[in-house]
C-alpha cells in the first residue's frame, strides 16, 4: 500500500508541479499588497522629505536617495531624549497590562475549557457579547462611569475608595488596556486549553503528582504555545494603542508611543517623524514575533520527534 501511495503522490506531483506552489499565490499577493508595499511606503515617508508649501510628507521612493538625518534624531530621542520616557512607559504599561490579562484571563479560559461542562457555550457567549460593542463606545462608557460623579466612582465611595480615576492616572490606563484586550487573550487560550489532552494530566496525577505539580509540569508547558500566541496577539496592538490613553487619561504623564505617532502624523508639521516612530516600533515588535516564531518552531520540532 505504501508503495502504491508513494507512486500516486509522485505521479500527481509530476502531473501538476505548479499546483501546490500555486496555493501560495493568494497569501503571497496578500502579503505583498497589504504588508510589503505599505511597509515600504512607510519607509519612503520616514526617509523622505516635506512639501515646503503644503507641509505634507513627500515620500522618497528611491532608497538610494533616502535621508537618514531625521531617523538619527528620532532614535537619539528614543534612547536619550524626550521620547525615552514615552518608550519606557509604553513597555511598562504593556507588561503590566499583559500580566493582568494573564492573571485574570488564564483562570477564565481554564475554567471554560475544563470545568464549564454544558454551560461552556453560554459562558463563552457571555464573555464575548459585551465585546460586540465597539471599543470606543465601551471606553466612552467607562469615561462616564469613572467621572467624578460617575456611577462607578460613587459606588466605590461606599467602600471608602474616593479615587479620581480620570485625573491622568497610569492605573486607569493600564486597567483600560486590560479591559479592552482581555477577550482576545481568553479566546485563543481557551482554544488551546480545550484541545489539550487532559488524559496527560490524569496520568500525571496517577503517577503521584499533586494538582499543583500536574498544572505546573503538564498543563502549563502544553499550553505554552497558546499563551505565547495569545500574549503576542494582544501585546502587538497594545504597543501601538493610543486611543485608550486618549479617552481615559489625556495626560502627558501617561503618554504612550502610539500617542506620539498620532501627534506627529496627524497634528504636527513633521509627519515623517511619525513614520519613523512606526518603523522603530515595528523593529521592536519584530523581537516579539521572532520569539513567537522560535517558540512555535520548537513546538513543531518536539511534535516531529
Amino acid at each position, binding site marked *: 500500500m505504501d508503495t502504491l501511495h508513494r507512486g500516486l503522490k509522485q505521479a500527481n506531483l509530476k502531473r501538476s508541479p505548479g499546483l501546490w506552489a500555486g496555493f501560495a499565490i493568494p497569501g503571497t499577493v496578500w502579503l505583498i499588497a497589504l504588508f510589503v508595499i505599505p511597509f515600504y511606503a512607510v519607509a519612503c515617508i520616514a526617509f523622505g522629505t*516635506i512639501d*515646503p*508649501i*503644503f*507641509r*505634507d510628507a513627500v515620500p522618497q521612493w528611491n532608497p538610494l536617495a533616502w535621508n537618514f538625518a531625521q531617523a538619527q534624531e528620532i532614535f537619539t*530621542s528614543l534612547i536619550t531624549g*524626550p*521620547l525615552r*520616557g*514615552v518608550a519606557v*512607559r509604553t513597555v511598562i504599561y504593556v507588561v503590566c497590562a499583559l500580566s493582568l490579562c494573564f492573571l485574570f484571563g488564564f483562570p477564565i479560559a481554564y475554567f471554560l475549557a475544563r470545568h464549564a461542562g454544558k454551560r461552556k457555550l453560554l459562558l463563552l457567549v457571555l464573555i464575548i457579547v459585551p465585546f460586540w460593542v465597539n471599543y470606543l463606545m465601551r471606553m466612552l462608557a467607562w469615561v462616564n462611569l469613572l*467621572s*467624578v*460623579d460617575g456611577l462607578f466612582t460613587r459606588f466605590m465611595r461606599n467602600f471608602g475608595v474616593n479615587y*479620581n480615576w*480620570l*485625573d*491622568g492616572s497610569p492605573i486607569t490606563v493600564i486597567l483600560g488596556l486590560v479591559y479592552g484586550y482581555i477577550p482576545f487573550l481568553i479566546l485563543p487560550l481557551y482554544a488551546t486549553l480545550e484541545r489539550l489532552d487532559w488524559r496527560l494530566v490524569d496520568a500525571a496525577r496517577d503517577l503521584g503528582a499533586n494538582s499543583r505539580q500536574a498544572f505546573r509540569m503538564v498543563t502549563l508547558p502544553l499550553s505554552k504555545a497558546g499563551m505565547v500566541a495569545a500574549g503576542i496577539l494582544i501585546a502587538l496592538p497594545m504597543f501601538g494603542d493610543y486611543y485608550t490613553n*486618549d479617552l481615559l*487619561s*489625556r*495626560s*502627558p*504623564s*501617561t*503618554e504612550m508611543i502610539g*500617542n*506620539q505617532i498620532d*501627534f506627529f502624523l*496627524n*497634528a*504636527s*508639521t*513633521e509627519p515623517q517623524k511619525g513614520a519613523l516612530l512606526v518603523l522603530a516600533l515595528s523593529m521592536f515588535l519584530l523581537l516579539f514575533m521572532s520569539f513567537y516564531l522560535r517558540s512555535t518552531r520548537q513546538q513543531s520540532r518536539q511534535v516531529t520527534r
Partner: protein
Amino acid sequence: MTNQPFRPMGRRDFLRNLAITSGAITIGGSLIAACGGQSTTTVDGLAIGTPDNPIKLPTSIEPIKDGLANETGTLEILNWADYQNPESIAIFEKQFGCKVATSIYDTEEAAIAKLRNGTFKPDLILGMTDTGLAKLIAADLLQPLNKSYIPNFKNVITGLQSPYYDLDSQYTVPYFVYANGIGYRTDRIDKNAFAKNGYDTLWDAQFSGKLGVLDSYRDTLAMAMFRAGNFDANTTDAAIIKKAGDDLVAMREATNPKVDILAYQELSSGNRDINFTWSGDLFTALQYLPEGVSPEVLGFWYPEKTVAKNDFMCIAKGAKAPVLAHQLINFLTDTDNALLNREYVGYQPALESITVDLLISTGTIPESLIDALVTPEKYDAGLAQVSLEPTTDALWLEQWTRFTAG
C-alpha cells in the same frame, strides 16, 4: 453636540504653519503682481500676510456674474462636524428650494489634501482659517466672491471686512471669532484669583488632576510665553521657545494637566476646575451642564494680551452651485440667522450686529460669561499667530514633545 471644529491643530496650528504663499507657488508671479506693492514677510519662499503686512491675494479667475439665478439641486458643503445648525440649514433649504449636503473634515490639512486630490468637491467650505487659506490659494482651489450676492457682508465686524490674510475679502467672509484664555469653575475658583495670579493659576499644584490645557502646540506654548512676559506668539527666539517648554514641563510636574480640547465637556461635568482653552468653548459648555447646574458655574478669564482669531467661509473653484453658495454665505451673515446658528454651534458669529448686549439681553449667554465674548475692540487688540518657517516650527515642536512626552 461635540466640539469637533476645534480638533487639535487641525484648525489653528497645523495649518497656521503655512503661509500666504507667493514665490514658491505656480501662481507666484501673479500674486506678486496682485500684491501691488503690499509688503509681505517672506520666509523660505513663502509670503506671509500678517496684521502688520497684510496681503491681497491673486485671482486666477473672475467671480461669477451678477444676477444669476439660483441653481436647483444640491448645495455641497464641507464643514467641521456640528459647526452649523441643522435648523438653520433646513430653513435655508426651504427658502431656496434646494438640498444641502454636508461633508465633514476633522483637520484642515486632511481637508485640503482631499480637495487637492478631488475626493471632496464641495461648493462651499466653512471653518477654514488664514493658514488654511494659504494652502487653498496655493493649490488654486478657491474662486473669488461676488459680493453683490452677499449684501449682509456689511454686518461683518468692521475690522474683519478686509482682513490681513485676504485684503478686501476677495475670497473669504468671516464665520466665527474666538480668543485664548482660561475657562474655570466659578464655584471652585474665585474670579479675583486671575486678577492676582493671571496665568500662574495654571501652575498652581492645588489644581493637580483637575486642570487642562489645549492640545495645540502653538496656543499652549504661546500661553507659556505670555506668562513669561514674551508677547510674540510667532517668536523665532530659541531661548524664549525653550523657556516656554521648560515652563510647561514645570506645569506638568506641578499639576499633571490634561492635554486635549475637551474643556467644554470637562468643565461642565465638573471633572476639571480650570482649563486653558478657546473662549467659544465656554458657550458650547453651557449645553453640557448637567441638569440642575446653574450656568453661573462657568467663568472665563480673558487675558489682557492674548491670541484672537477667526475662521471663515469660502467658495470652491469649480463649484456646481456657486450662486447657492453665495446665498448661504449671505444667509449666515444675517443677524437673526447667525444667532440661530450660534445657538447650536456655541461660538460667536463674526458680526458687528451681534453685540454683547444683544447676546446677554436675549438670554443666550449668561452674564457670568460676558468676559468670554470677543468684542471688536478685543479682537483688534488680539495677538495674531502666523505661519512659522520650518526650522522655527521644529523648535516649537521639540519643546511640545518635551512637554507631552512626559
